[in-house]
């Protein structure tokens, strides 16, 4: 299967990832308390320092309040009614050594999602870490990557096999008590991916993680950590889907990126979690903390996101520009339809000298949805010559949706240059008529208009994913003009 076909099936069609896989789970009690956290740590056979990390985070979380500043409305999750750890039953109770040990139903699930894990069918040129509920099922091309010195595995494996690296970096970008959901994640986190690229290395493959929430009772609390040593480079992509359930599920992830001197990390997301039905029933609460640290001089971190799923999105992939001459980028397309609500944006924190950041945000709202951009550009006193350029454009389709922009600029350095542009447009009857007169049907017309609007962002995606993201936008908005 080619990459294009794979992505096509990953994002294509009406929500066709709403199916459930019928697997047997290990028993695990609902709710959150110290015993639960100890039990998670015990089942994962973690060293003491990880348990301490979790317990400290839990102490902080207990003191914190769920934030109410995002421009979204929802019934707060009942934290005692969530299952924080969800693992499937294994042969001999051990993590699979090879694909033969993986539950065939789970393999089939990934095949249906267009991400076959079996060796003969694997995607070419892309290494995949497949995360199913709380666990990484399998990681492809590990050996091939290891030859280049690149470590690509689940965070649980990294804790076992490379504890010194994890210990140094985990929590160094997003501290345990950073915010309510980051603290919750730090207490109960389960598998996400771990990437380590050594000095002077260009990662030979595109890396990706495919997240799947299957268990109705559970949430997903993955933690991802990517470290790029001096003068190295990696491009990473994540994809997300979940079954269609009546009730909401919580997804509270933490992603930390560290770029050392002259290093570059490109992180792309295609988020297509189940978004609920037209009445707003069900769907994922996507409350995520993503942050990159340009620690070395001349380093670069670039976030590109195509956000189309989730009932509620609350997400601000950010960059701390600590190294001199470091570069931060945020390219975002957020589409909301029906009753979806999104409050998303970024923070660019300029600390080093001559640091540069670019923010291109394209919000598209349709149906009765609400779409907000929220962004902070902060220039610290010693960030001489810092520059930011921001563009926030909103597009409205129909009369019943909303678009909002909340830009915050704090500059403490008079040599800094900060530019902000914003626009709001409506897909008009005349625009659609014009394209229909040229032979396109209404859905193709909207798709073309929206893709033109989002072009600056879509072209930042790795080539093989860009076409598919294009299609996803079109499909998401099908029939949105009455």
């Amino acid at each position, binding site marked *: 299967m080619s990459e294009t076909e794979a992505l096509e099936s990953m994002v294509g069609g009406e929500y066709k990832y709403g199916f459930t896989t019928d697997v047997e789970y290990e028993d695990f009690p609902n709710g959150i308390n110290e015993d639960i956290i100890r039990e998670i740590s015990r089942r994962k056979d973690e060293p003491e320092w990880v348990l301490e990390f979790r317990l400290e985070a839990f102490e902080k979380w207990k003191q914190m309040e769920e934030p109410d500043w995002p421009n979204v409305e929802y019934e707060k999750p009942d934290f005692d009614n969530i299952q924080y750890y969800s693992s499937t039953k294994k042969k001999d109770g051990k993590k699979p050594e090879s694909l033969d040990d993986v539950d065939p139903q789970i393999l089939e699930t990934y095949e249906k999602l267009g991400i076959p894990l079996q060796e003969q069918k694997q995607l070419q040129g892309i290494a995949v870490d497949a995360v199913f509920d709380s666990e990484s099922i399998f990681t492809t091309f590990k050996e091939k990557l290891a030859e280049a010195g690149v470590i690509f595995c689940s965070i649980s494996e990294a804790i076992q096999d490379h504890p010194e690296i994890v210990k140094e970096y985990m929590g160094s970008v997003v501290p345990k008590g950073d915010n309510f959901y980051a603290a919750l994640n730090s207490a109960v986190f389960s598998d996400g991916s771990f990437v380590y690229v050594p000095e002077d290395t260009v990662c030979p493959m595109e890396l990706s993680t495919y997240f799947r929430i299957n268990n109705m009772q559970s949430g997903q609390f993955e933690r991802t950590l990517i470290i790029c040593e001096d003068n190295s480079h990696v491009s990473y992509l994540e994809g997300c889907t979940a079954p269609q359930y009546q009730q909401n599920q919580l997804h509270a992830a933490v992603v930390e990126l560290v770029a050392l001197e002259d290093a570059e990390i490109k992180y792309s997301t295609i988020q297509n979690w189940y978004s609920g039905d037209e009445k707003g029933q069900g769907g994922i609460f996507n409350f995520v903390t993503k942050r990159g640290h340009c620690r070395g001089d001349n380093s670069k971190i670039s976030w590109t996101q195509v956000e189309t799923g989730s009932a509620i999105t609350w997400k601000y992939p950010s960059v701390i520009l600590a190294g001199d001459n470091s570069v931060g980028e945020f390219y975002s397309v957020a589409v909301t339809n029906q009753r979806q609500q999104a409050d998303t944006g970024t923070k660019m924190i300029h600390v080093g000298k001559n640091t540069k950041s670019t923010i291109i945000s394209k919000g598209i709202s349709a149906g009765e949805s609400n779409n907000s951009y929220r962004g902070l550009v902060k220039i610290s006193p010693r960030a001489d010559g810092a520059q930011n350029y921001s563009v926030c454009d909103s597009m409205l389709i129909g009369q019943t949706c909303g678009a909002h922009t909340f830009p915050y600029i704090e500059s403490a350095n008079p040599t800094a240059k900060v530019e902000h542009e914003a626009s709001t447009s409506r897909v008009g009857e005349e625009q659609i*008529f014009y*394209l229909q007169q040229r032979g396109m049907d209404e859905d193709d017309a909207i798709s073309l208009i929206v893709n033109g609007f989002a*072009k600056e962002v879509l072209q930042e995606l790795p080539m093989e994913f860009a076409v598919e993201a294009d299609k996803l936008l079109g499909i998401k908005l099908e029939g949105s003009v009455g």
Partner: protein
Amino acid sequence: MLEIKDLHVCVEEDPSEKILKGVNLTINEGEIHAIMGPNGSGKSTLSKVVAGHEAYEVTQGNILYNGESILELEADERAHLGIFLAFQYPVEVPGVTNKNLLRQAYNTIAEEQGREELDPLQFEDHAREQLKLIDMKEEFLERSVNAGFSGGEKKRNEIFQMAVLQPKLAFLDETDSGLDIDALKIVANGINELSGEDNAVVLVTHYQRILDYVQPDHVHVMIDGKIAKSGDKDLAIKLEEEGYDWLSEGASVL
């Protein structure tokens, strides 16, 4: 090819606003028609109604294309039949290149008409060929549709699109308005190149000026939602000299 019979049209949102009040018009293959008339007489509405704009409602009468009513067809379905409208105010589509729009449009129409679709390279050749007609450079293909175009460029782009899509029946809604004399000649030249035995062109215009360069077979004057008079090119010259008053008075007497 096109028969408009006793066509009555109102604004969909406000049925009391009647714009067309019984238009009759027959257009045959190989003909060039000019529809003239004062502002607000319904010329532009007629073009949009033929193209299938949803803001208007046909309350009486019919539009037949090759003998079949097209009233129930969507705008895109009418485009598939070969009906083209050059817009009075061409719409901007930022981020979508002229080339991408036109290739998608060309291939959609070709598919519907059972003609061969063009791959990107073939299409590029075809489009470049048509660029010469309107005297534009190749960058024109890569620019976003009408975004940041001058008024004259937008009008030329409409003619270019017509050239690329090769329609059977083209309504040009005031394509000549706001053009300087050089641009007017280019547009007129394009129209002449594209009109032939198998297709028809309808020029909707305020001015006799373009008719110095394009020879119409028929000239119609539209006043208050009806065709008040039809004739040949001499009618246009008379209108230029005497205005529309003599017709409105005549119409009111009738």
